[in-house]
């Protein structure tokens, strides 16, 4: 009987940079990654995940609450994105300010310790709470946008404040991107090629093209765009049902493996599939290590 041990997964450490946690009613998924994640993560040698909580797509407050809860319950393993919703710019920006501000530092703890009216017990409680929040906050690493779900094109001016904030605070932005020429017409808002215009105005952005701009022949166009923007911080992830034969090898050949991040898009693809896709690809061990772990560790400083 085949066992995961036979895959020699311990040769590689893995960071999943694109994974979804939480319910999403318009998509029928029986199994929740949350319920099974320790089992799956351990079996596939995932060291870290960077997740998006699905409740963000309904409500930003609920999204951040659920994100913080999951982070608290999964120390040393889970990291998160917050979602920027272009229909709620002020609220989105306030979340960015709060979670990517300078307020969660030791300097602030010191201020708390020196504030008047404190006693030793409140000091300890405050410090503990602050430390815990500090630790959890520090594990929010990036911003996710979903132009298709929000039906706002990548080039729309409602993202301008996001780009400014992301550059100022040096935050990577993960965008859902997809082939616009598919049955679902709202995918046109998430056309990866629209980032060419964005990057021409904001060349210092760090952008991850989620799903590598999926699908079919569109990969060739995405590769061309990335080659044109070679000096920029433009990455792809391989999350989603995009397991085309030879595609990963093509991306590595044309762009180099340092531009590719491992992501599963779980639960909308089983993590085993994406791991197998990289493991069995005809690329070097070094390329696999870059894709599985090194690139994400460098980009997100984890």
């Amino acid at each position, binding site marked *: *009987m*085949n*066992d*995961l041990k*036979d*895959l020699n997964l311990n040769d590689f450490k893995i960071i999943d940079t694109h994974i979804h946690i939480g319910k999403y009613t*318009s*998509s*029928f*998924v*029986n*199994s929740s*990654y949350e319920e*099974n994640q320790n089992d*799956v993560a351990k079996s596939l040698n995932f060291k870290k995940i960077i997740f998006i909580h699905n409740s963000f797509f309904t409500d930003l407050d609920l999204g951040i609450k659920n994100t913080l809860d999951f982070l608290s319950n999964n120390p040393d393993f889970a990291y998160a994105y917050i979602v920027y919703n272009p229909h709620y710019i002020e609220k989105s920006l306030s979340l960015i300010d709060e979670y990517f501000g300078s307020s969660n530092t030791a300097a602030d703890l010191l201020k708390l310790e020196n504030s008047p009216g404190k006693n030793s017990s409140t000091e300890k409680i405050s410090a503990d709470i602050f430390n815990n929040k500090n630790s959890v906050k520090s594990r929010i690493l990036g911003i996710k946008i979903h132009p298709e779900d929000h039906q706002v094109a990548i080039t729309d001016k409602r993202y301008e404040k996001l780009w400014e904030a992301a550059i100022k605070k040096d935050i990577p932005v993960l965008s859902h991107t997809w082939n616009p020429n598919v*049955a*679902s017409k709202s995918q046109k808002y998430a056309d990866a090629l629209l980032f060419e215009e964005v990057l021409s105005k904001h060349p210092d952005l760090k952008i991850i093209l989620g799903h590598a701009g999926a699908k*079919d022949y569109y990969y060739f166009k995405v590769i061309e765009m990335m080659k044109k923007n070679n000096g920029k911080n433009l990455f792809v992830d391989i999350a989603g*049902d995009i*397991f*085309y*034969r*030879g595609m990963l090898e093509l991306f590595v050949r044309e762009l180099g493996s340092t531009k590719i991040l491992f992501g599963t898009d*779980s*639960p*909308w*693809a*089983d*993590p*085993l*599939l994406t791991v*197998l*896709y990289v493991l*069995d*690809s005809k690329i070097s061990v070094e390329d696999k290590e870059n894709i599985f772990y090194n690139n994400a560790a460098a980009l997100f400083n984890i």
Partner: protein
Amino acid sequence: MSPGLSVSEENIVTYHEHLGTASNNSTIMLTNTLSVFHDPVEGDNQIAELTCRHNFLKGCLVFPNYFIGNEQDFEKYLVGRFREDFRILRLYPKSHKYNIDPWAFKDIFKILEKFAVPVLISLDELDITGNKAIDWDLIYRIAGEYPNIPFILDGGNSKELMFTGYFYQLLGATGNVFLESHNLLGFNQVEDIVKKTNSSRIIFGSNYPVFPELLAAKRIMFSRLNTKDRRNILSGNLDRMISNINIR
């Protein structure tokens, strides 16, 4: 399926070797994209030549739409192709422009029912509007009226099997509907289907050469299922289905 993704005979042999290495014993059910995009008869003649040369190959017969209106000649054609090692009939009602509603396709279904020939149909072919409106009800009605025909639903390029619970209802309400595995991509989806129904309802498919060679096979081989369930999916279910074909 894009014609640009066809593979050579040499590739098929190599694929079989790799599959054999992974599984000790394998059969490949082959569909010719020429049959799908150009002419079913010409394409399936090529398959017949291949099945002659390689005993690990069996054919998926693409239904030629010129039998619409000439249904009386289809039985002879089907039996002839069975002798050339074709074992599954593929239907492309949307692409090849015919109606498989029971009232319209009854003469063909009667023949298939008589012989218990498995039918494979892609969800892309049941997407009546082109906007992911799959006609699940049609499959339910056909399966109900022809319980001796195993209907295998191939996810095609559609993501619908990942995003819908309709097929659970269809599996629950029928005994002769099955899911081809390549597009069961969701987290734990294969395991969940086995848990909610049983492993007899899943038929292995690779989607090679669109997918890499062994991706779909390894998904099952390294799944969170027991050995018996894995074996059912990888070969047992289809073996049983084919052994039930009543053409002598």
